[in-house]
């Protein structure tokens, strides 16, 4: 079930109503059932994969806690759990990729190998396996008590608002909240509705309209002039942001309706002044996951520069591969890592002196933001391209066709929607829509609601664009 579907419009109020009508002891069962229905709406049989992950990590958590004083055994259970979970991820996500590369290599060596692997990636696999792993690691580290209630643990992995594309929650936050008693509070309903409305606006009105232009140009880059290709590249930056941010915001809102607080996944990333800062603002739940479970165990930043650079590259390459089983994703991650290292090296070599003048300081910041946006936009080409050939075509078309080719005809209203979004992003700098709204007078607030409702209903794109992060 997707958030911008009529099914979800019916599903969510029913679940919320039942949640408040049922006693606390029955809520977990209802939420778990609802989450199963939500997930099985896509491909029912894939719930079995989730079940396997849940059973492995649930058992591992208990066993690790049981052998708290036996480090060797404890570690063995952790390794079994992590390897099993990663194995599932490997089979469903990476086996096809490995096989294709193996076949390619064999053919290059003159060997006649034609094995094919045709496995469809279960939706949201990368997200819930990471969430499940974080639980086992936290139990191992002693930060989290093992969950004895199988239902609650299952719900922690399967909680429908964040099941498919995150945010990737930690047990310390979500699992704890699932046990808490939640009373009906008007404030939660109000905040939840605001977030859902805002999320729908940025997904359905901004991202989906931009998506149509991006698809058009990426399908035939050579037919467009360079300005149009560059415009499509910039549009994709906003499309992917609005798409993912929209989904995360609806997830936050849906959970908030029932009183659950899910962590923020974005904080105006395109206002970042460096690649490092960008990753503090983009897909925060994934960045912090890698920070806590990969980067810091590797030594983090408390090591020599060379080792630090290596740690950074490992994390970013893993992050790239996490997104998709393709060389383009790997290079995308590598490029981000490399640039982050270069930025840090430059900062160390040439420490910046803050200008005395406020205007000069602001201008410098704006330049830095523009630089980061341009670099991130260029990197998104690797992310969006179907393969290296497509990526090459896009870059080639962006620099070599200024004279000829079609001009991308963008409808005026699409500029308006994009402008509205950019304005909202500036207004919401280091803030969130639900809390930002609270500070406004009633009439202004309701005018904003009315505008958003109208835009979502009457001006949303009618093309069906699946959420981009569903494929991960």
């Amino acid at each position, binding site marked *: 079930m997707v958030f*911008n579907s*009529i099914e979800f*419009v019916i599903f969510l109020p029913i679940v919320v109503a039942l949640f408040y009508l049922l006693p606390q002891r029955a809520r977990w069962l209802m939420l778990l059932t609802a989450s199963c229905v939500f997930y099985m709406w896509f491909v029912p049989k894939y719930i079995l994969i989730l079940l396997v992950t849940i059973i492995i990590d649930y058992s591992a958590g208990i066993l690790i806690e049981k052998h708290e004083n036996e480090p060797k055994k404890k570690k063995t259970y952790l390794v079994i759990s992590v390897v099993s979970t990663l194995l599932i991820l490997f089979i469903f996500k990476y086996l096809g990729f490995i096989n294709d590369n193996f076949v390619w290599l064999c053919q290059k060596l003159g060997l006649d190998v034609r094995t094919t692997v045709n496995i469809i990636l279960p939706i949201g696999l990368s997200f819930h396996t990471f969430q499940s792993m974080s639980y086992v690691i936290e139990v191992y580290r002693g930060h989290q008590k093992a969950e004895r209630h199988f239902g609650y643990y299952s719900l922690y992995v399967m909680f429908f608002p964040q099941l498919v594309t995150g945010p990737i929650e930690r047990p310390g936050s979500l699992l704890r909240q699932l046990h808490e008693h939640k009373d009906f509070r*008007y404030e939660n309903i109000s905040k939840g509705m605001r977030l859902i409305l805002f999320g729908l606006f940025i997904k359905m009105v901004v991202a989906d309209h931009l998506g149509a232009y991006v698809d058009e140009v990426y399908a035939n880059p050579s037919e467009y002039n360079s300005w149009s290709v560059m415009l499509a590249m910039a549009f994709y930056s906003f499309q992917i942001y609005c798409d993912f941010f929209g989904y995360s915001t609806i997830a936050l809102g849906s959970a908030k309706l029932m009183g659950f607080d899910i962590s923020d996944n974005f904080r105006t990333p395109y206002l970042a002044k460096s690649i490092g800062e960008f990753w503090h603002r983009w897909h925060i739940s994934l960045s912090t996951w890698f920070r806590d479970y990969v980067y810091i165990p590797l030594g983090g930043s408390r090591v020599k520069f060379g080792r630090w650079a290596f740690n950074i590259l490992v994390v970013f390459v893993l992050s790239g591969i996490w997104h998709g089983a393709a060389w383009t994703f790997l290079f995308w991650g590598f490029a981000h890592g490399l640039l982050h290292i270069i930025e840090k090296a430059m900062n160390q070599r040439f420490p910046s002196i803050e200008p005395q003048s406020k205007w000069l300081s602001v201008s410098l910041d704006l330049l830095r933001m523009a630089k980061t946006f341009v670099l991130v936009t260029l990197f998104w080409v690797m992310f969006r391209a179907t393969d290296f050939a497509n990526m090459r075509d896009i870059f080639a078309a962006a620099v070599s066709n200024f004279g000829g080719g079609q001009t991308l005809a963008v409808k005026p209203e699409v500029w308006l929607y994009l402008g509205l979004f950019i304005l909202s992003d500036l207004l919401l700098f280091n803030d969130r829509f639900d809390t930002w709204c609270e500070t406004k007078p009633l009439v202004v607030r*309701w005018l904003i*609601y009315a505008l958003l409702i*109208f835009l979502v*209903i*009457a001006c949303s794109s009618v093309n*069906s664009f699946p959420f981009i992060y569903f494929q991960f």
Partner: protein
Amino acid sequence: MKKLLIRILVLAALLFVMNWVYSKWFYEKDLQEHSDMVNLPRQVVADSCRIVYLGESSNRTYGWAESDQRKISEMVGDYFPSVLCGDMTKNASHAEIYYNMLKLIPKTSSVETVVVTMNLRSFDAGWIYSRLETPLKKQLVLVQDYPPLVNRFLLAFKAYPIRSDAEWDQLALKHRKKESLQFPFESEWNNAYQWDSAMAWRGLMDSQGQRDDAMTELACHYIKAYAFQIHDDNPRIKDFDDIVSLCHERGWNLVFNLMPENVDKANELVGKDLLYLMKTNRDYLVNRYGGLEHVAVADNLNLVRDVNFIDQNWTTEHYYAEGRHFVARQVALALKSFYPSDFFDPQTVNLDEGHYLFSNTTTIDNTFPYSDGLQLSSEALQPDWDRVNVEFKACRKTDSDKMMLVVQWYDGEGNSDANYYRVKESQIPVGKWEFATFSLPVDSVLRSSQYFKIFVYNPSDSPVQVKDLDISFRPAYMKPGVKGEKER
């Protein structure tokens, strides 16, 4: 609680205002962009049509070389010169689409009778779960009976089935596996899936005893398209029932036009089991709707022969002009009961070109050098027919010597070539009707062709009148004859 109630009331008021704003400034643009089918009923109403023909591609498809390229619905109009007939034609449509289009015709319109295409294949899983269903159903969302803003809400939140091509195909496959087929005689087929698989596995053989892949594939198409049995729970039945109810409610007469299928090909490729299913399905529909008040069913299932089907490599209801004429006539005869005094049979008028209306014929020019489509001869070339005699009467209007007799042959793979024979000025003098006679050899090239055409061609701007074109084949030992001495 009071606070909440006030907010709900404010929201309701806001939605009311939004609906007004949307209807006034946005709705029409959206209709044109996402549901342009709305223009079809609007046109019918604007034209004050009394008879409306609803169809899919079968109504408007014609052969590339046909002089008569009119729709079936236009041909129906010939039978009722005093009644305005219109059409609502939309490709890949089916009963659900027709029902929704009919609902868009206001009660106060001049429409009295509707003719609804009943396509047998549309009851099959392949069409019910067609890949075209997503765009078709999407078009219906904006024209539902709700307030415009609600319709737009439903469109925005994708209140229509969104499935990938693979998912639609999977549904059709599942259906074919699940639905069992019942025969009153011994048959080895339990369901369409098994039948289709068996045909694909066994294959059809050509005259040399070799597997004919093209024919096998076509046979599989026929099985997939017709190997089903219509039951009351078929979704199309509900839609046709809804159409009947709507017509009763509006006081419209209704004619169901059960379209001809290529029964010849079905019989040739698959055999009696498939014919049995096609006929029982036809009987089901005729029995269900034929006896209703103000409803007539034009049963045309077996009306058109294989040669009049345009698509020979696929299952369609696309007919050459003659086939369309046959269908139009049957529909007109069904309509006759509702308009007895308006009915006029054009076939009773003597026409220059067979039984077609004079108005239907097209001036012969270099785009359409011959007068009709691919009506093939009923007999194949015999071994001893070594010559072909061509004889016609012609009259030149001006002094032009470009007139030619053309023999054009086709090899069956899309290639063709032709021989041109000049009609000399001495044969046909200006302003005088004279016979032109040719005796041409039937050589090996012509003999090996799939078919050939013989026609008089006038590439000049100067008109030439031609009549009584006569073509006869004869053995070499017989001398060329004149009019009236034909061997066949």
